[in-house]
């Protein structure tokens, strides 16, 4: 009896099955199923490149706008004996847990304009299409989304995309770019940016299923609704023009993503990694977007830590702010003015001093997150051992907008595969994507090449 009750009463699914049988025939279906299952099992074994029972590796990509004052950012010496530069002082306590990477470059951002053509491809490394709307493209899938494609089967959420500000409205008719380029670093495909969540409460609810799958009656209702609208979209699609069909595909993919989420929570199959903390132990943030920027950032970073800790997802991206953000940073001592304004320091010492302080505030937030990750035990070490937190900007000096010598930090130990505690100085415009390939290695994603990469920046794993 009980077993029968588990079979969902879903008329349209049954009809769907009948349809499949008619079109495809059962033998194919069987082989498709077994192939899927085999692939899944195999993937489960090799997902993290570590033996079963070892904690998985998580990756985050944290973007901050408007670059840095390079002279205060770049440490003088390279290698293990380097001394922290003035801007990097906040890393003192976690120096051994962080790689400082300098000399990395994004060659496809040297044309275009000051900002937009550099932000949209921060994680794709490919050329951004100059457009005010038509044929929007970041040149490629972003590295976080590529990782998410591979890790999504193990966690309730494929990835998290976080931010603090709504998408920038309007187009910049002078430089010929839509401003939405400055609001997205995560791209599911070259032509499809992933919307970011700026409301902490909603992030929390997503993490713990409150939005779609926490209660069985609601899950059941949602699944019926989604079945219905999938059928709507399926019928509608062939009646649309080609461009419109692409838009309908985005919708279809989103519906399927939510369905998968619900399925995941209903599966109750043993996870390949059992997180150390139960969600019930956490308290949800207050509703609404915090008025204080500092609080907003702190909560978002905490949520990211929580997501990793609970293995709700293994991939995340976050934008401290949209590009060209004019946020007033006078809350930092010694600063009076806005971020973008001060990043155009005109080589004026007084402004540079303030710009540096803003840079340093950003590093403090990153250092704080490192400490938090380090304070959480996991396996025989800490959560930080199993994380790779990239922190960087898409331009170097905010006054010149150059996309070379990018400020990049990589925190965590990537499953104890990173030689942290060094300053790795690259010479001769080494692609930032070389680093991404090395990160993909550590996430168990096998690629020869990514974006404009030419080699692997870090030693291969194992």
């Amino acid at each position: 009896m009980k077993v029968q009750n588990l079979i969902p009463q879903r008329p349209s699914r049954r009809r769907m099955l009948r349809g499949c049988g008619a079109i495809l025939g059962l033998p194919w279906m069987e082989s498709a199923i077994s192939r899927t299952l085999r692939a899944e099992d195999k993937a489960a074994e090799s997902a993290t490149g570590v033996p079963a029972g070892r904690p998985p590796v998580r990756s985050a990509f944290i973007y901050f706008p408007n670059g840095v004052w390079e002279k205060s950012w770049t440490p003088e010496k390279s290698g293990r004996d380097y001394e922290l530069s003035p801007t990097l002082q906040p890393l003192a306590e976690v120096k051994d847990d962080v790689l400082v990477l300098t000399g990395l470059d994004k060659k496809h951002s040297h044309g275009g304009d000051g900002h937009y053509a550099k932000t949209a491809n921060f994680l794709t490394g490919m050329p951004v299409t100059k457009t005010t709307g038509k044929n929007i493209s970041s040149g490629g899938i972003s590295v976080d989304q590529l990782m998410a494609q591979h890790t999504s089967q193990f966690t309730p959420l494929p990835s998290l995309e976080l931010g603090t500000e709504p998408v920038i409205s309007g187009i910049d008719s002078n430089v010929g770019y839509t401003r939405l380029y400055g609001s997205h670093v995560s791209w599911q495909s070259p032509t499809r940016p992933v919307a970011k969540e700026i409301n902490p409460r909603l992030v929390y609810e997503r993490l713990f299923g409150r939005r779609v799958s926490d209660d069985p009656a609601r899950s059941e209702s949602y699944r019926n609704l989604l079945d219905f609208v999938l059928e709507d979209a399926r019928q509608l699609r062939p009646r649309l023009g080609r461009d419109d069909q692409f838009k309908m595909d985005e919708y279809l993919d989103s519906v399927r993503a939510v369905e998968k989420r619900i399925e995941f929570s209903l599966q109750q199959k043993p996870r390949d990694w059992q997180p150390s903390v139960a969600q019930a132990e956490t308290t949800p943030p207050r509703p609404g977007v915090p008025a204080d920027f500092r609080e907003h950032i702190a909560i978002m970073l905490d949520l990211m830590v929580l997501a990793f800790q609970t293995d709700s997802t293994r991939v995340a991206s976050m934008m401290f702010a949209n590009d060209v953000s004019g946020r007033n940073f006078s809350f930092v001592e010694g600063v009076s003015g806005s971020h973008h304004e001060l990043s155009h320091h005109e080589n004026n010492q007084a402004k540079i001093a303030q710009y540096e302080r803003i840079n340093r505030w950003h590093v403090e937030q990153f250092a704080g997150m490192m400490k938090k990750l380090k304070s959480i035990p996991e396996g025989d070490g800490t959560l930080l051992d199993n994380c790779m937190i990239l922190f960087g900007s898409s331009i170097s000096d905010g006054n010149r907008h150059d996309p070379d010598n990018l400020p990049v930090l990589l925190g965590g130990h990537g499953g104890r595969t990173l030689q942290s505690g060094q300053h790795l100085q690259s010479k001769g415009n080494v692609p930032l994507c070389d680093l991404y390939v090395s990160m993909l290695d550590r996430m168990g994603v096998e690629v020869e090449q990514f974006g404009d990469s030419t080699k692997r920046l870090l030693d291969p794993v194992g």
Partner: protein
Amino acid sequence: MNATFDLFARRYCRRLPILSLFAAIGIAVPSGMFVNVQADEHEKKVESWKKSYEEKILPIVEARCVQCHRGDKIEGEFDFGKFPNGQTAADAGDAWERVAKRIRLNEMPPQGSPGLSDEQKGQFHRWVDSRPNQDLCKQLASEETQSWYRGFVMSRRLTQTEYRNAIRDVVGIPLQPDEEPPSDGAGGEGFDTVGDALFTSTIHLESYLAIADRVIEDALPDTQAADDNAKAAIRNRLLIVLPKSLQPESSSSDSEAAAEIIAQFARRAWRRPVTDDEKLRLMQLYEASTGRRRGFLASVREPLKAVLVSPHFLFVVETEPDATGVIRLTPYQIATRLALFIWSSIPDEELLQAADSQVILNDDQIRLQVRRMLADPKSRALGENFGLQWLGLRGFSEVHPDGELFPEYAETLASDLREEAVRFVAHVFQQNRPLTDLVAADYVLVNGRLAQHYQIDLPAESPWQAVSVADGRRGGVVTLGSVLTATSYPRRTSPVLRGRWILEEVLGSTVPAPPPNVPALEENTASTAGLTLRQRLDLHRQKAECASCHDRMDPLGFGLENFDGIGRWRETDNGQPIDNAGKLPSGDSFSGPNELKSVLMKRSGEFQQHFVRKLLGFALGRELNKFDQCIMEACLKKLSENEFKSQILIEEIALSYPFQYRYHKQPTEAPEPPTTSQVLFDRLEQIARKANALKKQADALQESKP
């Protein structure tokens, strides 16, 4: 060819709707011949125009322009090196209009470089003015050009704003600020109505699901508090029939009542009649719920939620008809476009009925509907959606003046400032005011609090109202407090940003970004120490490469220096008296906002052109192309014939060809849906996983049995 005839008919016979069919047949052939004859003459004119470029203009260009405007050392965006002969110059076409404008305003060549003599200027302007007119309006529907409409206006999803308004109008329950779907970017002419720039992510769908769930549960609760009239009204509006089980005197069974309620709701939400198959499938959701012994209301709620998550609600669906070519939209599609344009929402019952009866296809009816819709409070959306995007104020809540310098800048003031902008733009349309009010109205819309901020005499508790301003300090978009705040830095005003804002958003000019490696302002060296901002900007403008833009921008901004960083009036800054004088390269000089606005009014033609472009781009949801120029010209002509009254502009856009027509491609071009197998495979994968999970559970159960 039918489409072509139809277009000629449409263009030439709009005023004679009854005769249009006959007229189309009658004039189609002769007009075609006319076009051919004209084409030959046109060729000759173009040849002579090219020749005159090579003989007269090219020497001027080479002597005065290419020094800065060529190849890799190019300054600004214009490369004269690309026009070494008549053919390349002719190909550049409209670009010369921009060059002419800059020369006319004495902005080019910039101060500090050798200028043009009066004779050279004259030659140049005569040449540009003699450019053979291509009369694009006549080309609008030719076989070659109809492809302009291909895919330009797409079946896009509703924007965040449209979705919010549509939920409000169809369910009767507003969204809470905390539950809105993610924000949208923009494309085309700078608006979020452009389908190319609207994407759908997973968090959108989660949001749509959660909202549909919440609002339908709130609208149709199982038990209703008897004394809550507002809630009862919402409920009664949705429950157009009650079954016997709830209302003994009713003659409807549960499922009959459900069918009617669901069909009515879906028609409103999907803004079209609902097909039998769709009704059937919606009823299946109802029955699936009653099958689990859920009550009538609980079961009705399920299909209503589905209606709100369906692509038929979330997308502006303009399906392809069987015919191809340029085809007029269906009555329901026109009703939807009208509602999105004026209300940023979906059609109401009256619009749907006008579509049912097809009267909405008549020009007169469209004019009537436009006026009715503008009189409806929902037309506030023209201010809130179009207006804020045009003025660059969409992100106004992200503007944070410095709390230490401006402790009085609180959330109430910020929202009053935003509200003023919304109300002002909406007011111009709702009251059918001339468009020139937007530049130089002699009134402001304020409430008591904002009046206090503006030093206008009004009791503090006063509601929103129009107050006339005699001194011309305020009135018009340039002196909106929100604009003045958004174009300031957190701790100081910026004449540069304000000037640039006026040039771009009011006059429709473009100001290129500063060339790389040019210092933005002189460094604070010994020679510049102690200078005021104005003096430093003056120094900056002495360089030719800076002057070309800053001569245009900075003076406009200086005219607004009497307004501080949050839009208050001031006579002094840091103890220094405000110098509000400005002089433009054209020779126009002024002091303060009132005179500045007079200068802007002299350039009112540029403003109107820009404004029409913006509104048309918003309405069409795409970037405008050269074929839209004739629509804009027709609109401008109508405006000047009607004292620039704003409603006529909305009417003309609503009646315009690209608003009402769409290019549909031939079915043979439409690709096979490539993802069908992917869809099936995904489903199979899910089923397989589920089967696997069930099997494991079953095994576990089996094992647990003793």
